[in-house]
């Protein structure tokens, strides 16, 4: 609880301090707020994948599919059917959650490495569908999405940079999900998740409904990823098939593992670290004057080294059964 309060205060301070006209613009510039928003969005995604890959131990490489799906649902509803933002936002989460059922269904039959590639395959198929359909705008995506409004006020008209409301909503979602996950962890469902994670056969023998809990984890994860996707595309006012792609999924899974599976604080650490690091490196690159962006090369190397030194992640705990 204390961690959450300090975290929110810091986020809110960064968001609103320039509204008070105290500091020079460039310290908490619009760019900083952009990074903050993206970090928070990835925190929600990482948390939601942590339910699937951490809590119940089903490694999924298709999580960006829910993120992108939520984005496309919301984009199409507001742009093609001229629906208002808030119902589209909710519907984006619900549709993503519904798609979570068929996407989670293979997990009932397929285990371990096979599940990884099946979820990966699902994500890729979604991407090819988005590229090839006319309604989704093909490879170029959909530009010019509406900016949401609250009580008649457009988000962009509130605050200095117009990003403040987005940040606050994303912060609320992240905190809500974090507390919700704490609750799950201590509930009957959470114990069932843990049992399935540690030994599926033993859990089934003890009367835990494996199929139901696996699907439940996928559905919860997908719902929050869908909501994030919706808010994210309206923030950018643009969506493209890249959002669904495997690179995003790999990044989210990496955030979970680097932060530490099962650790809620770890998910925030992973998401913030892996969002801020590449931005920082890009800044460094401009100072040093490199002609290329070294981030992805370094990122790969860091992952290999990290898994060697601390395979359970920064804040992760070693489970009893090392698998």
């Amino acid at each position, binding site marked *: 609880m204390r961690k959450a309060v300090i975290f929110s205060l810091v986020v809110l301070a960064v968001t609103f301090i320039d509204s008070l006209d105290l500091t020079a613009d460039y310290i908490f510039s619009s760019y900083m707020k952009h990074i903050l928003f993206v970090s928070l969005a990835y925190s929600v995604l990482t948390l939601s994948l942590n339910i699937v890959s951490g809590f119940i131990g089903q490694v999924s490489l298709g999580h960006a599919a829910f993120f992108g799906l939520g984005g496309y649902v919301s984009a199409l509803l507001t742009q093609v059917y001229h629906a208002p933002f808030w119902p589209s936002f909710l519907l984006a989460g619900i549709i993503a959650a519904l798609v979570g059922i068929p996407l989670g269904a293979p997990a009932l039959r*397929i285990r371990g490495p096979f599940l990884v590639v*099946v979820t*990966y395959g699902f994500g890729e198929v979604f991407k090819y569908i988005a590229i090839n359909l006319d309604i989704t705008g093909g490879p170029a995506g959909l530009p010019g999405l509406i900016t949401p409004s609250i009580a008649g006020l457009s988000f962009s008209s509130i605050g200095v940079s117009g990003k403040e409301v987005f940040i606050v909503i994303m912060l609320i979602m992240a905190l809500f999900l974090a507390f919700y996950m704490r609750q799950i962890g201590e509930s009957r469902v959470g114990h069932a998740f843990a049992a399935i994670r540690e030994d599926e056969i033993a859990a089934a023998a003890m009367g835990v409904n494996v199929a139901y809990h696996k699907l439940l984890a996928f559905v919860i994860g997908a719902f929050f990823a869908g909501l994030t996707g919706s808010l994210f595309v309206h923030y950018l006012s643009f969506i493209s098939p890249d959002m669904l792609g495997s690179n995003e999924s790999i990044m989210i899974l990496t955030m979970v593992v680097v932060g530490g599976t099962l650790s809620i604080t770890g998910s925030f650490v992973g998401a913030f670290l892996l969002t801020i690091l590449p931005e920082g490196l890009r800044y460094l690159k401009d100072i040093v004057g490199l002609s290329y962006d070294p981030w*992805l090369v370094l*990122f790969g190397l860091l992952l290999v080294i990290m898994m060697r030194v601390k395979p359970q992640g920064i804040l992760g705990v070693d489970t009893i059964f090392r*698998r």
Partner: protein
Amino acid sequence: MLLLQQIINGLALGGIYSLIAIGWTVVFGIVGLINWTHGEVFMIGAFVGYFLITSFKVSFFVALFGAMIAGGLTAYLLNHFAYRSLRTGPKLALFITALGASTFLRNLAALLWEPHSRAYPPTLDFSVQTFTFGGSALTVNTLQIFIFAVTLFIMAFLQWFITRTMMGKAMLAASQDLEVVSLMGVEVDGLINITFWVSGILGGAAGVLVGVLYAINPYMGALAGLKGWAVAVLGGVGSISGAMVAGLLLGVAENISSSYISSGYRDAIAFVIMIITLIVKPTGLMGFKFEEKV
């Protein structure tokens, strides 16, 4: 007739898929690792072949041989530096290591060799032959036939290696139970090194063969590696002969689907086939059943 034409067009690419898939399947069967870097080994093979041909003006077969050695060496080094120490660790850490190594190699290649596409210079004589068959025309590119023949030769050699040599037999046994094989006096580390060499050699060869047919670029490994995995799953993971048949099937299926459905979905076919296989028949065409032990 169009169907027959598409089948002929698909065979050369299918043979290459088989080579990539065998590289996947031997490593997974023995080490149990999703070898995410296999696509990068394949890409490195393609580039080594390219530089051998353009800078050193060697013949096609020398370039193929050089690329096979380079591929094998890359796979061996990857095992040595990245995977070896984690083999008994958590599976997720091993997988993330593979993802990291793959990202590292792919982007390093893009950095060193620039991310644009290149085409192999014409090293082989080939011609396009037209046959009339039952009243309609069939065009056959001799280059494709040649590629297909090379892949068949490599696969025949591999089959001989696996079934006739002691080393190959040990690999075959290890893919069923590594622990028991080690109890029988086989040195496990050496066996795993050889497995990575074999996998890399096949990947490197596939890289050169793709390079002769299509353009190459540093990012080519991502999709090719995954298609290799899809083929390995369709054939039955751990089964070499299954991977051979499944590769040809996928090559043909891709060509047929792009002419009958839509070429935009061409690359998605592999994943659809893989998902359906895993849900309907997880053991694939020729795989053996993995019994889960309590």
